[in-house]
């Protein structure tokens, strides 16, 4: 696929309020940069992430979606990320089954102390998505600009 030089990936990062969002804050206060293509949405817990939101993001033009939550065992609500882990595993597997590249979806556990990990994760994910190019398989043509 030819990558348009103008093209910039759109990446949505859902971050749990207690760990990963704080991890992103720490990355910020540590001045650790990651691409501006990554936009964060704060959710209370990784278990709040409804598959509808992920599909919605792809529909609206996202090229990659990543979920960050507390490490297993560290969930603020004790069990939320365990449920999220199963749900996302199954959902990602289904997307892959439908021929959607599984590298477009990712889950990473990032604690509030892992600012460097947050930045590294986002850099790596953005790099992967840039290499994969535009998401055409799971987008909605109506939502393209023009």
């Amino acid at each position, binding site marked *: 696929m030819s990558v348009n030089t103008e093209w910039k990936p759109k990446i949505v990062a859902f971050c749990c309020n207690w760990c990963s969002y704080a991890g992103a804050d720490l990355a910020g206060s540590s001045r650790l940069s990651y691409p501006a293509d990554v936009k964060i949405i704060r959710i209370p817990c990784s278990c709040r992430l409804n598959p509808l939101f992920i599909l919605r993001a792809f529909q609206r033009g996202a090229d990659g979606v990543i979920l960050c939550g507390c490490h297993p065992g560290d969930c603020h609500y004790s069990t939320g990320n365990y449920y999220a882990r199963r749900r996302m595993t199954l959902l990602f597997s289904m997307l892959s089954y439908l021929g959607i590249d599984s590298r477009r979806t990712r889950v990473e556990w990032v604690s509030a102390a892992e600012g460097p990990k947050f930045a590294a994760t986002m850099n790596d994910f953005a790099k992967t998505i840039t290499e994969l190019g535009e998401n055409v398989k799971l987008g*909605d043509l109506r939502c393209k600009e023009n």
Partner: protein
Amino acid sequence: MKKLSLNSLNQWLEGIAGERRVIAPIEAADQVNYGVWTPDSKIRLDALRTVKSAKDAFFPQVENMMNFRAEGKNLSVEMIDPKAEDFVILGVKACDARSFDILDRVFLSDPYDPFYAARREHATVVTLACGRPDENCFCVNFGIDPADPKGDATMWIVDDTLYLRANTEKGEALVKDLEDADDAAVKAQQAKTREVAEKLPFARLNLKGFDGDHLMEKFNDPHWAELSRACLGCGTCTFVCPTCQCYDIRDFDTGHGVQRYRCWDSCMYSDFTLMAHGTNRPTQVERFRQRFMHKLIYFPSNNEGMYSCVGCGRCLAKCPQNLNIVKVIKALGGDEA
């Protein structure tokens, strides 16, 4: 009468398709539906029924009507021009051919539907006579002759030969270059088809009493609850039906504006004609009744007795739970012939 060897069908179609789109029954992923023909397509003129009817060619399931564009706080409106390009729809059976007459009465009378009209105007309809009706067919009840369908041109397949007859100027233009033929083979097939059609299990439905005069009686018939009990409320019957013409108009927010489109709707759905106060057909009994009352009572009483059922048998073949219009007709008194 003209003829063409079935072996040369593709060649003839390529000639037609050079100028315009050809829509024909095409097999894809194990199902036969009307689709745009290309030389690679698997054309299936032999299929008795396509899953969806031929109405899609004139009244597609989804179509855009207008766009609103948003720039900051400003909106601009863009109307979609309902212009169409010429196309040929080929292989339409007698029942579907009749459905166009019914749809015309809806879409070409006031309020006139420019999208539908443009497609009708640009279409050449080439029908195909049935050679092998099945037990679900009951078009003969509506005065349809499966052996001699209408359209701009009519086709018959006898063995390996395709016979064609032009019925209109549009049809003439299509077949004029083909080889002339004797119609004996066609006549023989027609006789056979008509003989089978008369013997079909539902060839003698009694439609007496299905008219505006009996509206309240049919509406209040005690059988509806029983008839509709197994109904899942899915839209299969309405979406495979060649005459169901209800649609919904919806807005889709694209993020940059709004696309206003229409899409088929089904009176079987709980949100059909949903209003602010809720729905006026709260249970499946009312929804189910609506569909058949419309086909058998409301439509004919507004259209000189023309039923909006063509006996194509799709709802019989496709209803997941085996409910259908024949059962309704019989339960409501149509079984007394």
